[in-house]
């Protein structure tokens, strides 16, 4: 059986950054598996700017950001297979792949980095009632058609969900001559970045209707209209608030779901909130030698953080290959409480941890003037005020190894929000 030190599943931003980092740690035998015909993943269709401010200190478009990492992979001569789909990963870290050239092949990996990214939540998951005509697209699919294929998906558009891709597509479709009539958002706040609301909606006079949803879709062949209604605090449509809007296209930007079907087959435990693997501070999953990074781990809003996280996974996988299995100590649990929905990582290996680790998390609601606090076994060790916290913007706290020295018996770290 063919064997490799590190097999990376996915050649998007996470996979590429992980590969480069692992190579820098001295691992020669790396293989990237990419299902598409090119490297770069979803960045290739994200032609808008706003990428790379943290990583490269300049504002790049998606394809440019991807190209920087593709160039590094090429410069390092890291091997990759394109048009190659991974069908299965088993508990022995055997990866079954399929492509035109080799048919079905099984590759044995010493370490695996999961970097498969995420997919969009489809209409069905929302149970929007009505007909099922053509003209209903997830925002990312429309983005691919418009940006990569140069096609017109529609002329009169309603967008449900104010996730970033939806906002970006509102502007994009407008620039291409379509009329975007409204962006409706179920929640009382947008799931997207503020700058996208201003630059993609406000700039073009596109109304954003918060606390609204679609209660009916009309049209038997192609969409002819949708019915919008206001929702109450329990997100239930309020009778009498219905408004029908004619349109030929409905774009959905209603959330992203990490693609963890392969992780599951590999025996990796998942977190019910992130829908991604449970990881420790080295980004190792519950399956030994299998690491995860990027949107397959948890959905990010900035690619810069994906790259940073992926580099960490690359370094950890490299260390797993060279040093071998860590003698595991008891993990310290990192818990999300009081307004914090989840954290990544969810546990900390205090013995092997780096000098400092970044814990990323999202809050559950929009909060103003709240504190983010960190507790070590019930003792508050950090307490920082934030002017505003929003679910759409990922937050982070740094945990320094030296701060743990006074807590030799530490069992649990809590990250929470506090009013005072």
């Amino acid at each position, binding site marked *: 059986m063919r064997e490799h030190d590190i097999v990376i599943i996915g050649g998007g931003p996470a996979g590429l950054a992980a590969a480069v980092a692992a190579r820098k740690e001295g691992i020669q035998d790396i293989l990237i598996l990419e299902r598409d015909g090119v490297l770069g993943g979803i960045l290739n269709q994200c032609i808008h700017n706003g990428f790379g401010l943290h990583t490269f200190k300049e504002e790049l478009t998606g394809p440019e950001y991807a190209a920087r990492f593709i160039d590094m992979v090429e410069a390092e001569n890291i091997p990759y297979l394109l048009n190659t789909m991974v069908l299965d990963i088993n508990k022995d870290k055997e990866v079954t792949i399929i492509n035109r050239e080799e048919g079905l092949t099984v590759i044995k990996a010493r370490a695996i980095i999961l970097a498969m990214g995420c997919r969009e939540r489809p209409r069905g*998951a929302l149970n929007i009632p*009505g007909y099922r005509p053509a003209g209903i697209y997830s925002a990312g699919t429309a983005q691919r058609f418009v940006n990569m294929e140069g096609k017109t998906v529609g002329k009169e558009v309603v967008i449900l969900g104010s996730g970033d891709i939806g906002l970006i597509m509102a502007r994009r479709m407008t620039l291409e001559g379509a009329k975007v009539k409204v962006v409706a958002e179920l929640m009382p706040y947008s799931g997207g970045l503020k700058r996208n609301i201003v630059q993609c909606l406000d700039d073009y006079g596109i109304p954003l209707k918060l606390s609204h949803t679609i209660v009916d879709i009309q049209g038997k*062949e192609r969409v002819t209209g949708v019915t919008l209604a206001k929702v109450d605090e329990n997100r239930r449509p309020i009778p009498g608030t219905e408004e029908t809007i004619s349109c030929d296209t409905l774009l959905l930007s209603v959330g992203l779901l990490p693609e963890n079907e392969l992780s599951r087959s590999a025996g990796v435990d998942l977190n019910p909130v992130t829908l991604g693997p449970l990881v420790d501070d080295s980004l190792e999953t519950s399956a030994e030698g299998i690491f995860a990074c990027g949107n397959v781990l948890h959905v990010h809003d900035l690619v810069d953080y994906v790259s940073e996280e992926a580099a960490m996974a690359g370094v950890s996988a490299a260390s797993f290959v060279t040093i071998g299995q860590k003698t595991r100590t008891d993990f310290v649990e990192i818990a999300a409480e009081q307004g914090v929905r989840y954290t990544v990582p969810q546990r900390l290996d205090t013995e092997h941890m780096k000098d400092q680790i970044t814990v990323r998390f999202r809050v559950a609601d929009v909060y103003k003037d709240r504190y983010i606090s960190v507790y070590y076994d019930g003792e508050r060790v950090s307490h920082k005020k934030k002017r505003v916290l929003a679910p759409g913007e990922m937050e982070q706290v740094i945990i320094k190894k030296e701060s743990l020295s006074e807590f030799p018996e530490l069992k649990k770290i809590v990250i929470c929000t506090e009013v005072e």
Partner: protein
Amino acid sequence: MKEMHYDAAIIGGGVIGSAIARELARYDMKICVADREEDVCSGTSKANSAIVHAGFDAYPGSLKAKFNLEGNRMMEELSKELDFSFIKNGSLVLCFSEEDRKGLEELYEKGVQNGVEGLSILSGDEVRKMEPNVTEQVVGALYAPTGGIVCPFGLTIALAENACDNGVEFLLNTEVTGIEKTSEGYDLTTNEGIIHATYVINAAGVYADEFHNMVSEEKLTIIPRKGDYLLLDKEAGTHVSHTIFQLPGKMGKGVLVTPTVHGNLLAGPTASDVESKEDVSTTAGELSDILTKAAFGVKNIPFRQVITSFSGLRAHEVGNDFVIGEVKDAPGFFDAAGIESPGLTSAPAIGVYVAELVAEKTGAKKKADFNPIRKGIIDTRKLTLEERSKLIKEDPRYGTIICRCEGVSEGEIVDSITRTLGAVSLDGIKRRVRAGMGRCQAGFCGPKTMEILARETGRDIEDICKNRPGSNMLEKEEGGAANERA
């Protein structure tokens, strides 16, 4: 106006029309199937519970009882002849209270009278032993080991393909709008011309009453009865292993929860009589009704994993039974009408019965060269590593995965387009090979599948439709330099 001549014209390319076509193809006759949609299996046959009923539910002595039993008994062998998915997973009818137990026993008695084999009544604990996710409220159940599940598209398309391979012509996008009695038989007016047919078989689903009433004074009334369904991700597919019905009781009619042959979990249907025979829109109320009702019988259904909802119309005839046979005051005109549940199960048997009726009337002889075998599209997921590698070596298109959720290769998609009665729309491909049927609902594979369909059928990608004409996925661009293709 185009003139077309046939010995027999079947109206409707659903499971009933296709089953009759396939059986009639055994005889030396010139036969056509006319359907208004772009593909077969586009009406009721595509949106139903996909159940092969055991046959305990129908009133003894009814046509429903007769054809259900016969169809159930035919299904396994037919699935081998025609290469479609069928699993005999057994079914359970849950009883929720001691007062309802009498109903359960009546059901058992009906089943025995109908000739259903292997029926037994289980205690609540016995049921939970078989199905750990059945709720504590359940006090007993009727167990029918002969119940099964089938792929409704697989069944219908297999029947139609086999009919087509044996000489039946399928006239698609052909809507029959009028029927007139002539001295030789009947003239069917369609948007594509006149079909002159000696015999007409009416298998028009929810519209069967309209065609019947064009030729007969004994009127039929078919009420479209809508049912909404929820389909869950394959991750939820093993939540139950049997098809789980609920005994109608004080909680109302109940809904079923069943695995599908493809490993998803299906819950539904609701039942509401609707005005329009085109109304296949789901409603919020009904969808939430499914959640509530399903939870009576099966606990912890992971409804977060719903990947799609859909709705279908049952052709409910007010007489409450199938209407099958030659119409008394319209000789040569045969009905297969009012085919609601257990219609899918009954289809193979109805096909044989109606074909024999028609053949007897015409005196047509059986053909010597009828080929009952149809080879389906290769399901690469069922091949071994070696078999699959060999296939890819022979045809590399089987090595390119297009639909990642369902693991469908380009080779399978191309086959679905280029074979007999091949797919012409995205829904047609989806029903044949499941591309776009999975958890992302064509988000990723949609653009690629469209490209393949355009390439294989020599059309522009802007002309690719989701299903019927007019359901184009993309807008045609106006002319100009921007429209030049690279």
